[in-house]
């Protein structure tokens, strides 16, 4: 009995999805859908939070007051993205504190791109241009994903990400129009960030294990390789405008496919960084844990004070 009931619920759920009717928190949903979403949304939230670190690294050294404010505001936006996304995960029954614990214990993943170091100011430009650019490629389709709260969070996020990308490109532009040394900084940053940016789209479609089900549920709308191709095709003319060279000898326009062919991605490096062996994995987690641990007394005090106030107000109400 319960089986046939489940089947009909599941059928109705899929029918809604097929008809592009968004799923809301109170609607029935399969456990797998809920779990997949919690994993995907919380990973995304963690990426926003860890992503604050490599760029935050340059706030104190930004080269002008205007750039300093631009970068501060950008990193603050990422914190805001983290908040919206943890909020969206909570609508699925997850709890922000335990999601954050999973990040800090190393159990939860976040985007591997943030395990690379920011060595020069040009990295701030390259990250805005390429990393925010790749994030937009990945995230714009999610603005129409099947889960309402996630889709709505992504609409706000994407607006800000496209601002970040323009800001990053503008930083690159200033460097490329600057002195020869500045242009060298820009080229060096592109050399280091290009391949990790391509890896942001995840493994090749043939290797990607969650894709088919996620496509059916419309929480993923294009394949990793499709999105990666779009990113390459978008970036090539931009690099040309900047006058710097994408570090890929195999990169060339393919007249037949009307898109760019590009070289082989070093998947060994990718999986190594995923497994924790990237240049900054340990450093990033240590920094996050340190901030969290050092903030413990603050969170405890805020809770204790709120409780005291509640009691005082209750007593006041009693005596009144």
């Amino acid at each position, binding site marked *: 009995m319960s089986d046939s009931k489940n089947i009909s619920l599941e059928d109705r759920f899929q029918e809604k999805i097929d008809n592009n009717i968004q799923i809301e928190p109170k609607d029935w949903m399969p456990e797998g859908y809920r779990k997949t979403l919690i994993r995907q949304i919380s990973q995304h939230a963690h990426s926003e*939070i860890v992503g*604050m*670190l490599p760029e*935050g690294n340059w*706030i*104190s*050294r*930004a*080269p*002008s*007051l*205007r*750039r*300093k*404010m631009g970068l*501060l*505001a950008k*990193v*603050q936006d990422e*914190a*805001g993205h*983290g*908040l919206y996304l*943890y909020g969206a995960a909570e609508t699925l029954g997850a709890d922000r504190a335990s999601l954050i614990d999973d990040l800090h214990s190393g159990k939860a993943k976040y985007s591997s791109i943030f395990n690379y170091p920011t060595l020069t*100011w040009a990295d701030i430009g390259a990250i805005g241009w390429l990393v925010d650019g790749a994030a937009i490629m990945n995230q714009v389709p999610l603005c129409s994903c099947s889960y309402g709260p996630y889709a709505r969070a992504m609409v706000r996020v994407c607006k800000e990400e496209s601002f970040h990308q323009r800001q990053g490109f503008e*930083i690159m532009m*200033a*460097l490329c*129009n*600057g*002195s020869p*040394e*500045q242009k060298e900084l820009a080229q060096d940053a592109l050399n280091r960030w290009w391949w990790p940016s391509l890896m942001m789209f995840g493994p090749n479609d043939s290797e990607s294990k969650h894709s088919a089900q996620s496509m059916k549920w419309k929480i993923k709308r294009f394949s990793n390789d499709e999105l990666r191709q779009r990113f390459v095709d978008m970036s090539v003319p931009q690099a040309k405008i900047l006058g710097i060279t994408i570090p890929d000898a195999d990169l060339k326009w393919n007249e037949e496919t009307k898109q760019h062919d590009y070289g082989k991605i070093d998947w060994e490096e990718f999986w190594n960084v995923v497994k924790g062996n990237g240049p900054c994995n340990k450093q990033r987690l240590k*920094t996050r844990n*340190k*901030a*969290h641990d*050092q*903030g*413990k*007394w*603050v*969170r*405890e*005090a*805020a809770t*204790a*004070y709120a409780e*005291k106030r509640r009691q005082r107000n209750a007593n006041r109400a009693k005596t009144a």
Partner: protein
Amino acid sequence: MNKSLLNYTLRIADNNLILGHRLSEWCGHGPILEQDIALTNIALDLVGQARNYFQLAAEIKGGGATEDDFAYLRDVYDFQNVLLTEQPNGHFGETITRQFFFDVFNYYFTQALTKSTNSQLAAIAEKSLKEITYHLRFSSEWMIRLGDGTEESHAKMQQAVDDLWMFTGEAFQADALDLEMVENGVGVKLEEIKPYFDQKVTDILDQATLSLPEGNWMQKGGKQGKHSEHLGFILAELQFLQRAYPGAKW
């Protein structure tokens, strides 16, 4: 060029820049995501205000001077911020205490500056006051929350108050420049805002179950360019790129 007016304007700008810089060091490291965002907001406000004052200073100085020249190309002895603003962040409670003391001063100072006979300074003050009002509310609330929170937080906050109080006197000690600017109606009468500062600090510390330390020795020197060792390191980071690539546009 009116050199006194330039220096007075820089003095105000420097407080905002240096404290804004300090707060910006928290970005990504806050105890709670919401507070990370809040501290960054205040940092953005302060750096924004510093820019307004630096732009005015550039106008006063003339000769193609820019806001960045003041921030990036002066050395320690040229900066006139009060020592309080350059103190290290320490723990969250120390940052809040430093912020609270500065906000109380800054609130009454800026309020008085809106009456300046220099209309440009008055206009910047007017624009800044709304932001500063919010800063003061934020830091006051956290003083109370942490002071009256747990035993541990109370002890940490009392220690922060004890350590930072000696940096609060300097802001109210009028030097020759302060007096000159009061005389011509441009500057703020520091002895007039001091009672308001004392009243507000006492009121909030009372609510926070905290007390002021016994001793009343006050450090001074920042306004005259005699700083703590901390400022040199702030400038080393702040100015690195402008110093390493002279004349470059960013």
